[in-house]
């Protein structure tokens, strides 16, 4: 397991969790972080069932919705994957 201090915590809900088989992942990232785009590309490659879900999902970094995919995710961040909502 990577040390939390060097990693991003990825939180998975609903179909994303089922595709990965885990409610959360820790991913080590370099000190300068990683772009959202790169992070998603790597997750899709490692968990093929996750790929179509990611295309329909919203993302939340440290409690705020991510706008666009250029922004960076850094060590210590929490990055949540929100598949399409379906309450009610």
């Amino acid at each position, binding site marked *: 397991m990577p040390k939390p201090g060097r990693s991003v915590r990825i*939180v998975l809900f609903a179909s994303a969790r089922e595709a*990965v088989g885990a409610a959360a992942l820790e991913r080590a990232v370099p000190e300068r972080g990683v772009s959202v785009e790169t992070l998603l590309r790597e997750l899709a490659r490692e968990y093929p069932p996750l790929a179509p879900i990611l295309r329909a999902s919203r993302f*939340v970094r440290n409690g705020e919705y991510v706008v666009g995919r250029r922004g960076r995710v850094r060590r210590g961040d929490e990055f949540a994957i929100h598949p399409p909502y379906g309450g009610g």
Partner: protein
Amino acid sequence: MSIRLSRRALSVGAAMRELEGDELGGVVLFAGRVRPDRVASGRVQALFYEADRPLALRQLRRLAGTARGRYGARRIVLWHRLGTIPVGDVAVIVGVASAHRARAFESARYLIEELKATVPIWKTDRARPARRPRRPRSRPRGRSSG
């Protein structure tokens, strides 16, 4: 306004009591119940509901504020049950009290539509979703690790 995400059963009678108030003559309640939908394995017996709690609560508060400002809702109940909910049980209650019924209807409709579309709550037809981490299929490469 009363906003709640809870594993406990929801009661429309309790919602009515939250919506009491002089001058508030019109109350509209929407209750969404778990339906026994057909799935690959047969009929759903229960659904499992989960939420990104802090974000869901924040968004519910925002929606209530908009219903109040834009539609004149005077009292609002936004309750969603989480966890495993058996078929027939209430999963969500949206309640609005207003001086007049038109506003209560408009607010309640707005709130349930927005709740479904914009609040991070999910349902799955598995009563107990996967919880244990699983190793990724391929070895992590480069800077990422599983």
